[in-house]
């Protein structure tokens, strides 16, 4: 059932007010005369009713993705930073995610999944309508991939956590030197001009890459390539940390990084299996793939270390897990379990090579390897999905699009995302620089951002 609100004022702010107030009214079943706007159901359509099982699973999946951000990503990134920047790193992750949630309900959902999709050129990139969730009610629904539906509020919440974690992921490349205020300005602009359009392009019915036939089950392109490339551009524009790479900057607590890795892995089942939007067999497929691709990748990274003449390390294990999770994200429901294992192993090996061998040669300071793992792993995963999707390799595809053709579609989608993310990030960083300045002072950077930016220490 779709309801429309008639807003007397018509302004955006009033629209949000109306939506919120009207909801409160319905929930409490009370009417106060002070509210001028009237909620009037104008269209009654016999629509599908959400299956409570699917709704319950999607609510669970949504909370699992939240757990990936806080405490998962915060601990993972925090442990990798130096002890003087622990709180700064974790707070930036948390605050960027919180800001993303607010922006999502104001205009993000509208831009990515709004009900009004124009047929023309612009419809490829953004949608409109439902600003401030104005058209959403407890009865409204979102389509899944079958004839089922889930409650629209649940879908909005689920997608909201994706926007939030992607914004937070980017910051892995910029920690230990970027101002908190600059992070906030950058996040707001970046979500608006980079994340929402790419999410629309890949996932919304009228989106450019959706129409192209690109496979991205849970966001390998939207989340990981997008975040990784944006992280690289942001890190280059921001400059290196003082002392990098001559001074040692070892992780201050691999214990916490390991804890964060575990939380990310568990949460990722919400991310990947939840992306089926139903509790069905494909969610199960995404689940098994999220186990085995990750397991393969974790051991592959350690094997690469050993083959390079080093010791298999705890950080290598954690890095392999993240690389595998990233790579299996686009393939989660688009691959058989053994295709997923191969994908995880290959992505892990490529990411190891990128992070341990190539990055030092380029000299940019992607502090926590947001690009090296999310960007590179995402690209390997997105392109590899075109291969493992095929029935020949045990994938669930019907073979109607050949391997080469599907891979070419995947490459095009990757290319569009890379260009869009790079250009958009350059704009967002430039604006943040003009508004707040990008970097903390040399003194704050030396003393640590915990005390300099937040007035606290992580450890006393």
């Amino acid at each position, binding site marked *: 059932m779709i309801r429309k609100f008639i807003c007397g004022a018509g302004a955006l702010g009033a629209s949000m007010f109306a939506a919120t107030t009207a909801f409160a009214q319905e929930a409490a079943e009370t009417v106060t005369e002070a509210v001028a706007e009237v909620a009037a159901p104008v269209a009654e359509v016999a629509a599908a009713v959400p299956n409570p099982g699917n709704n319950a699973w999607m609510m669970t999946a949504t909370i699992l993705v939240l757990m990936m951000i806080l405490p998962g990503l915060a601990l993972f990134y925090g442990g990798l930073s130096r002890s003087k920047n622990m709180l700064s790193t974790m707070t930036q992750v948390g605050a960027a995610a919180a800001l993303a949630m607010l922006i999502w309900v104001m205009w993000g959902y509208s831009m990515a999944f709004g009900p009004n999709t124009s047929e023309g050129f612009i419809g490829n990139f953004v949608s409109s309508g439902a600003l401030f969730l104005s058209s959403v009610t407890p009865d409204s629904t979102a389509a899944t991939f079958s004839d089922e539906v889930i409650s629209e509020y649940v879908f909005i919440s689920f997608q909201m956590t994706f926007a939030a974690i992607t914004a937070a992921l980017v910051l892995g490349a910029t920690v230990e030197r970027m101002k908190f205020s600059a992070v906030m300005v950058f996040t707001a602009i970046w979500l608006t001009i980079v994340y929402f359009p790419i999410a629309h392009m890949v996932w919304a019915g009228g989106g450019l890459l959706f129409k192209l036939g690109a496979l991205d089950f849970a966001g390998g392109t939207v989340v990981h390539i997008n975040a990784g490339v944006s992280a690289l551009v942001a890190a280059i524009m921001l400059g290196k940390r003082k002392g990098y*790479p001559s001074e*040692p*900057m*070892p*992780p201050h607590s691999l214990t916490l990084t390991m804890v964060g890795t575990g939380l990310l892995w568990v949460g990722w089942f919400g991310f990947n299996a939840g992306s089926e939007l139903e509790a069905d067999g494909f969610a199960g497929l995404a689940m098994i793939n999220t186990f085995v691709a990750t397991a393969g990748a974790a051991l592959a990274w350690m094997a690469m*270390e050993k083959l390079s003449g*080093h*010791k298999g*390390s705890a*950080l*290598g294990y954690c*890095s392999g897990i993240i690389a595998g999770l990233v790579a299996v994200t686009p393939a989660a429901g688009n691959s058989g379990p053994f295709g997923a294992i191969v994908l995880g192993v290959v992505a892990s090996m490529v990411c*190891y090579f990128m*992070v*341990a*061998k190539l*990055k*030092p040669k380029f000299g940019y300071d992607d502090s926590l*390897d947001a690009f*090296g793992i999310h960007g590179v792993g995402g690209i390997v995963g997105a392109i590899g999905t075109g291969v493992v999707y095929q029935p020949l390799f045990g994938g669930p595809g019907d073979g109607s699009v050949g391997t080469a053709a599907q891979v070419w579609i995947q490459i095009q989608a990757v290319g569009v995302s890379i260009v869009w993310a790079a250009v958009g990030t350059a704009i967002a960083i430039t604006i943040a620089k003009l508004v707040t300045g990008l970097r903390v002072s040399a003194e704050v950077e030396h003393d640590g951002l915990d005390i300099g930016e937040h007035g606290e220490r992580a450890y006393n």
Partner: protein
Amino acid sequence: MKFIIAIIKPFKLDEVREALGAVGIAGMTVSEVKGFGRQKGQTEIYRGAEYSTNMLPKVKLEIATSDELAAQVVETIQQTGGTDSIGDGKIFVFDLASATRIRTGETGDTAL
């Protein structure tokens, strides 16, 4: 009286302490220290970024002893503290001018 400083590998501490107790050493001062010699440092690697640490952890023993026991102490540490590899440490012996037990004011060998 002699004052003996020995730098040994940390995992050898218990063994050396027991052996010294057996030859009649009733007390010593133990510190965790860092340093380097021929063994140099060790390398830590985080995602391919190598950090070589110049200093290695060692344990420093400080023992005051009578002249008669000194040679035996040195021999005991040398025999129990060694692993036949570089980085086993060093033993230094000094002449000790005086020793005083704070509680009683005793001096010389009786204060040890």
